[in-house]
């Protein structure tokens, strides 16, 4: 599964490089408040090493292990400043 995550005032860019291919980049949705991106094992089955390069410039984030996916991000956008 490969879905896309971004919000109207909080664009994100995700690049997935595997076997020298760039699979995905510069994600930008319309006005959805919450979306999820998942880089799943079924699509990238022979991974032996992983490299994460993450950059956050505002808001709040949590980062933890636990999902089945190689990488999963759920993004939410709040209209009320100061409230997550």
């Amino acid at each position: 599964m490969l879905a896309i995550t971004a919000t109207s005032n909080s664009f994100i860019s995700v690049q997935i490089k595997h076997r020298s291919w760039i699979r995905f980049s510069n994600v930008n949705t319309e006005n959805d408040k919450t979306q999820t991106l998942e880089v799943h094992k079924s699509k990238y089955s022979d991974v032996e090493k992983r490299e994460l390069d993450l950059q956050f410039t505002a808001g709040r984030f949590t980062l933890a292990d636990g999902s089945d996916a190689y990488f999963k991000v759920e993004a939410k956008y709040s209209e009320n400043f100061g409230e997550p």
Partner: protein
Amino acid sequence: MSGKDLRIEFRQKQNRAAVLNLFGTNPNYKVEVGQNEIPTQMKLVLTAGDGEVDFSALKLTKATIEMTAGDLNMNFKDSSIPEQIDIKLTAGDMTLNLPKDIALELEYNKTAGDIKVDNNNLKNGYDTYTYNSGASKKVKINAKVTAGDLKINFK
């Protein structure tokens, strides 16, 4: 990078209105890293905002953390302790919680701000600090602190 490596870049981009908070944006991201047995290198850059990192099972081989503002709290439990952590702190508050039974080899260069290891305040300049050196598992931390507060705790 070989064919069996997977590299994932995540960038948060904000438009001008969002940066100025004209529309009160406050994004919230929940990121999960699965398939824990895969050796993983991580670079994390935080230029503002708040972050909470909590790894207990991920096989992390190296972590690089750069922070210019904000508040970052990181928890590494036994099986997720990387061999090396590189930290560059320009401002903001960073807290690193490590397991009690691990050895620490810290090499640091501090201009201003605070570095506290197990509540010991370290002096300015270049120096090294070791903790629990007899332990079988060790983490090496290279820290460059220009300003801000770095706390390393053992829990």
